[in-house]
């Protein structure tokens, strides 16, 4: 049995509908920017609702230097670019990286499903006898997302894993990196989530009646649903000791996480199980419920999620729960990237002392009794943030982050 190490976040890479790169992302969170607009990635003709959140101004060649960019699917490009941003942000050069044992875990919902959509469009047009384009087919296996990072950063000893735990995948990946670093199995973890917007998932959410006609309004009495989105969030994790040794900037400490499964229904969340997940995370972090200052909710803006999650939060935190924000109002639902972007935002909120708002908000649903910090960010002396990711299949994951303060003796 080894003494577990403390794990800190020293690098952040983000691609999102409200900004790319940590600086732009931070100001957008403060300003309460909303990245919604008409979807352009695929033809939305015939859909009743056509809004989504897409990443603008993404130039993959800015971040991807070794791999042939045109041969990578968009989700893989996102994952690699965000990973490159994160390691640069952490101040790690390639020479330093090369000597490290790295855990690379990327969460995704759809992987390169947008590529499969294109193949199916072609197959429908040309008939089933038309052979599959092998170049495109080669992009489909989801483990590309992690493998491409290892290849681009030239990390032959990295362990590249991709977790397909749907919309909680980002938090799952962060948890995996946390365990790998905390146990000493890896020196560094490059972890998070990535997804590119795709037609089939948009069609699925549309058919399920979960897509909003204009904006995503979590916890709002008139909320209509979510908007699908794309993006990537990647964190660099290392031990506190290693960060101190390198003199690295520390955004936040990763205190712990919790995972569980509802084992209840393929699509409907289970309140008790969601509450249990947060409790597992708090216990793992060694944090009491009353020490939590902010919850970054899964908060999809669908009628069911927001009520169930609010109730679960009240079950865990009591009648005066911490402020609870839903970043999906700004970011849309970026699937496997969602909770990773949530964790990145949580770390930035802790580092810079503010609460990002729940935008697009009009009137809080009386069934969602929480302070969702409507529309405007507020300065706040945050110590502990809980970041939730919930998924179809009842895959829940909560991550707990704490402010890092060298003077603060725990």
């Amino acid at each position, binding site marked *: 049995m080894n003494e577990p190490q403390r794990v800190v976040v020293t690098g952040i890479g983000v691609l999102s509908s409200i900004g790319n790169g940590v600086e732009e992302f931070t100001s957008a969170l403060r300003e309460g920017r909303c990245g919604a607009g008409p979807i352009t990635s695929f033809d939305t003709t015939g859909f009743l609702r056509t809004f989504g959140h897409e990443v603008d101004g993404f130039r993959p060649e800015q971040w991807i230097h070794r791999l042939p960019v045109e041969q990578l699917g968009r989700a893989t490009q996102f994952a690699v670019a965000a990973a490159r941003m994160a390691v640069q942000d952490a101040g790690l050069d390639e020479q330093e990286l090369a000597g490290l044992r790295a855990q690379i875990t990327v969460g995704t919902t759809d992987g390169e499903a947008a590529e499969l959509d294109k193949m199916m469009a072609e197959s429908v047009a040309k008939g089933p006898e038309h052979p599959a384009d092998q170049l495109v087919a080669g992009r489909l296996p989801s483990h590309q997302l992690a493998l491409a990072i290892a290849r681009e950063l030239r990390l032959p000893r990295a362990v590249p894993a991709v977790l397909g735990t749907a919309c909680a995948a980002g938090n799952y990946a962060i948890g995996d990196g946390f365990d790998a670093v905390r146990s000493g199995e890896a020196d560094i973890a490059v972890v998070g989530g990535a997804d590119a917007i795709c037609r089939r998932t948009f069609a699925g959410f549309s*058919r*399920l*009646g979960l897509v909003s006609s204009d904006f995503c309004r979590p916890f709002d009495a008139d909320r209509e649903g979510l908007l699908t989105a794309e993006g990537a969030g990647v964190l660099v994790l290392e031990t506190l000791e290693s960060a101190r040794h390198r003199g690295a900037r520390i955004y936040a400490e990763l205190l712990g996480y919790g995972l569980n499964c509802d084992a209840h*229904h*393929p*699509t*409907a969340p289970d309140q008790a199980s969601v509450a249990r997940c947060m409790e597992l995370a708090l216990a793992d972090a060694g944090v009491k419920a009353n020490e939590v200052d902010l919850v970054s909710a899964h908060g999809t803006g669908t009628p*069911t999620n927001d009520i169930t999650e609010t109730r679960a939060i009240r079950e865990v935190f009591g009648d005066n729960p911490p402020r609870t924000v839903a970043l999906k109002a700004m970011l849309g639902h970026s699937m496997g990237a969602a909770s990773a972007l949530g964790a990145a935002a949580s770390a930035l909120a802790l580092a810079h002392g503010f609460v990002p708002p729940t935008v697009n908000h009009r009137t809080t649903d009386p069934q969602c009794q929480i302070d969702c910090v409507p529309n405007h960010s507020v300065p706040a002396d945050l110590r502990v943030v809980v970041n939730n990711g919930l998924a179809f299949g009842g895959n829940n994951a909560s991550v707990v982050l704490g402010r890092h303060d060298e003077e603060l003796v725990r």
Partner: protein
Amino acid sequence: MSAVAIDEAKVREIVADCLDLEVEELTLTDHFIDHYGADSLNAIEVLARLEKEFHVTIPQEELANMVNLSAVLEVLSRANAR
């Protein structure tokens, strides 16, 4: 008013299939959730398949009204053509 003719037998067949029932097990009045153990996903499937079959649009808000076969027929009768 619906612009299309509703084939009641076809509706019954679709609903029974969605609820995983034999056609003769499905009555006009028994409640989908309470009696047949259906859930929200089954309800959406019913709505989606009826829309597709009869080329109509059923507003999402009607889901709550679609509690049994009789109610489904009523909802369908007021659905608009696509």
